[in-house]
């Protein structure tokens, strides 16, 4: 099985979410992209909803260092230790799992294991997953630290790139949203506007 690009490792996990730490600073997946990690019994899929770079040591704040420098890269060249003091983490909303041959668009029985490797899904895998848009319901109803509508829009934009006819995908997804948002025409309108 082609696993895709391995980018991070699970460092915190619950049934509905997990946090992963990137191996390389600032090399996290894009907001809204589909990632997966290997669980004990199943593969767990999730959508990246928040990416954050912070100091590894909660007691030490990052300070500005580049006043005298020409480019931003120079800051790191002059302070090689920085890469080790900082870390890029991202939060993932779990939206489904694969157990054996079955792909399910609901939460897995067990959370993602700590230190599970996290991969960015390949385009084919995105297509396979997005065959059913049932996962949108999970996203719409989630309570997240960032705007849900932003995440939904980012996710659909990301997914649409997996399709040769991305417009058709967006229309289909848009209609699913319209159904989920029911009467809320204003909210629907605002999400739809972010789909391009």
């Amino acid at each position: 099985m082609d696993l895709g690009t391995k980018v991070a490792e699970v460092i915190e996990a619950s049934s509905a979410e997990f946090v992963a730490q990137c191996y390389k600073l600032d090399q996290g997946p894009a907001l809204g992209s589909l990632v997966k990690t290997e669980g004990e019994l199943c593969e767990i899929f999730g959508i990246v909803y928040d990416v954050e770079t912070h100091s590894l040591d909660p007691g030490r704040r990052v300070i500005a260092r580049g006043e005298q420098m020409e480019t931003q890269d120079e800051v790191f060249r002059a302070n090689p230790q920085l890469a080790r003091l900082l870390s890029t983490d991202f939060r993932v909303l779990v939206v489904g799992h694969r157990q054996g041959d079955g792909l399910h668009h609901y939460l897995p029985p067990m959370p993602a294991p700590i230190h599970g490797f996290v991969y960015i899904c390949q385009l084919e895998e995105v297509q396979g997953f997005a065959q059913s848009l049932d996962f949108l319901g999970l996203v719409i109803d989630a309570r997240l630290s960032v705007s849900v509508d932003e995440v939904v829009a980012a996710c659909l934009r990301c997914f649409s790139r997996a399709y040769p006819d991305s417009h058709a995908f967006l229309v289909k997804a848009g209609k699913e949203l319209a159904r989920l948002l029911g009467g809320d025409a204003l909210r629907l309108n605002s999400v739809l506007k972010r789909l391009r």
Partner: protein
Amino acid sequence: MAEQNLDERTRLGTVVSGSLTRGVDVKLDASISVEDMVVGRYVAIEGEKRRFFGMITDVSLEALDPRAMTTPPDVADPFIAEVIAGTTTYGKLRVLPMLTIGGDAVSILEGPQPVKTVPTHFSEVKLASQRDVELVFGAEDDRRFHVGTPLDMETKVCLDVSKFVNRSNGVFGKSGTGKTFLTRLLLIGMLQKQAAVSLVFDMHSEYGWEGKNEKGYKVKGLKQLFPSKVAVFALDEESSRWRKVSTDFVVKIGYGDIEPEDIELLRQTLNLTEASTQAVYQLAREFGDKRWLKTVLNLEEDDSKQLISKLNIHDSTYRNLRRGLESLRRFPFLVPHAVDNPVQRILEYLDRGINVVLEFGRFDDSAAYILVANLLSRRIYARYREKAEKAMGGDMAPSRPLVITIEEAHRFLNPELSTRTIFGRIAREMRKYNVTLLVIDQRPSGIDDEIMSQLGTKITCLLDDERDVDSVLAGVAGKSELKSVLSKLETKQQALVFGHAVPMPVVIKTRDYGSAESYKALGFLEAAELKKKTEKDIEGLWAP
């Protein structure tokens, strides 16, 4: 959607609510545009236990969120417009279920049955496939005649001609909607399926030899297509000659054949008073049915005076009557002595299975039409009746059913006259004596309701007067739904057919008539082809 497969059914949506009497509501799938849905189209609904057939009777727009009406979504953005369509806003159909077919072998053998229930919630609704339509209307065969196609389909809708001629029927529609073209096809259907023999009172001389389409091009009449099966009778010899019609017989009617009843029917057209119509009966008693008209028309002033004092007829009444009768002289087809007997001639042809079309030529006014059509029909009917009675007694084989076609039927069958004309009687008696009517009219509301209710099959093109629509649809199940279908017909060559000869109401695009292909489809061979065929047939005789 025209190039759809025989079996393919495009999915339209799902049943969401409804009732048997009102029809079911169908939420359209987002992928289907309401604008593609037209009233009158056929759909198939896959119920749990059986398949339903129905007709779209209404199309509406709905929205989930009533706020969408006040703050419409940003549809200027084509993407948003595309998403919104069918979701927060969606199309709804009203479908009137009409027939069902059960899933088991027995029901398939029994064929389509009238509906007695509705499909379950969320049953899938699809456009009917060609095969569905064929299943319902049957393929063209020795009883069924192809009259047209359902909306947006290539399948044939067939009329069961043998059922059709069992009852009197009507073709309606305002002027220019295609009644004449449709009637020509119906006449051909009856001719081809040999279900009946026709007598057509062809007011505007467009059925017998040739007619015109609206662009002024000639279209063939029945005689040109089926020369051995059709005889053209002419009332106006001169007009026939000008039009180069090959006429089989010129009709002349003797004064002796005009009876008081005939004059009574002409009361309005001849401007007669009630009293003078009564006087006719007196005169007939005085001089005899055969001689009264000739005698009265020849009376000199003095003799007239004597006569009216003898019969106690008022002078003004007599003058009114005389003026009316004198106006009959302008009809050259009325002669003091007829040499031949047109009724006898018509019967001879009909007995041989040859259809008779009587062309009126220039006499296309109602006086001539009412007079001649009634006079001839009355006598012909009497003969059929005689024969039918004999046949019932077992003395004679029953005669071939006769269908009499009349135009402007409201002139004969209005409430005032319908009890008195022979046509009212024929319509009421159904087919007791093997005679039925095909009435053609643009103002059906003028026809007696009772007569309308006797018509077995009605075929109606567009009507826009409310009263006409009501009179045509009176007593039909699903009337208000069909009403909306009827009022949305195209202005030409589309008709709603319902009644005896079709299993369920259907909107058709009437089969094309007038092109070389259309003649060919009706079995007509051009002279050259005919020659070839004959040669081949002859060759066949000698083949080893």
